[in-house]
């Protein structure tokens, strides 16, 4: 029953990902990348990670598309300088072998939503049972991001601030 929704979604993800890489026109590539982000957001929501889906939809499909488009309008929208040589024979032989190895390794991963998997037995049960009592925050994700792991979020905010400053330093050099 799950497969009726899951498989077409994953196939669409693969198609859009490959399309974004292979299309020659960079503006089309940006739009395909935006639709890829949108599909990925649906996958996150389907897996139950609604907060991640929200951020993916807003940042990946919205803001990043605007940034890419503005960069392309400022530079050159055709992919003329990048000469793509055909892939070497080693890639055609080696990548399937690598894929098979990864699939073989994936056998040993814990099953999806297994209550006994290492991710579910240690710290996450503590978060789930205590976060509402300790922080009065029903959304566990927000409680973890902003309280239990506030240092990580602080550094992430610093990273975003640095990105803005770096863009200003590089692109607004000649102004004022």
């Amino acid at each position: 029953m799950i497969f009726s929704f899951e498989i077409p979604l994953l196939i669409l993800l693969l198609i859009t990902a490959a399309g974004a890489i292979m299309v020659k026109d960079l503006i089309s590539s940006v739009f395909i990348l935006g639709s890829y982000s949108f599909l990925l957001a649906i996958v996150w929501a389907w897996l139950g990670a609604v907060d991640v889906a929200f951020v993916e939809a807003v940042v990946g499909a919205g803001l990043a598309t605007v940034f890419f488009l503005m960069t392309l309008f400022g530079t050159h929208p055709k992919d003329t300088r990048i000469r793509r040589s055909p892939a070497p024979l080693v890639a055609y032989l080696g990548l399937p072998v690598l894929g098979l190895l990864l699939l073989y390794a994936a056998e040993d991963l814990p099953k999806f939503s297994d209550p006994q998997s290492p991710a579910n037995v240690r710290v996450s049960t503590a978060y789930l049972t205590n976060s509402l009592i300790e922080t009065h925050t029903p959304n566990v994700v927000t409680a973890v991001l902003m309280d239990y792991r506030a240092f990580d979020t602080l550094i992430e905010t610093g990273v975003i601030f640095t990105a803005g400053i770096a863009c200003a330093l590089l692109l607004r050099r000649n102004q004022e």
Partner: protein
Amino acid sequence: MIHAHDSVIVRTMTRILIPLIQLFALYVLFFGQFGPGGGFAGGVMLGASLILGILVFGPDAPPCRLAKKVIHGDGIGLMIFVGVGGLCLIGGGEFLNYANLDIPGIDSDARRRSLGILLTQIGVAVDIAVTAISIVISLSLINGEESHD
């Protein structure tokens, strides 16, 4: 470079959409403790509403003038976040341990933590909104002619 859009439909729709986007962004920001969302998504949407105004109304309209004032506040969001951590230090505890926020009128530790989460989320949202607008204004200054060579 950015030019004003001439289509009446786009301009009218943008005029209607901007307040709606801002309202939804504030909802996402303040409701992040109870449902999906939070500082990251809310901040991006807050910035996106102004970016829409910049792109549609052009460099001489109110949104762009407001945005150019806003980008002088780069880092205020980070300051709010670190300031909340500092208040925790002043309250006699560890950095970013909101139970030590020394604010009169709030008695239980859990409510202090809830308030700390809200304040830091506002900090994150302000930081991300300002950064998004700042990057868009930086990108709009790329000179398209010189890179054609």
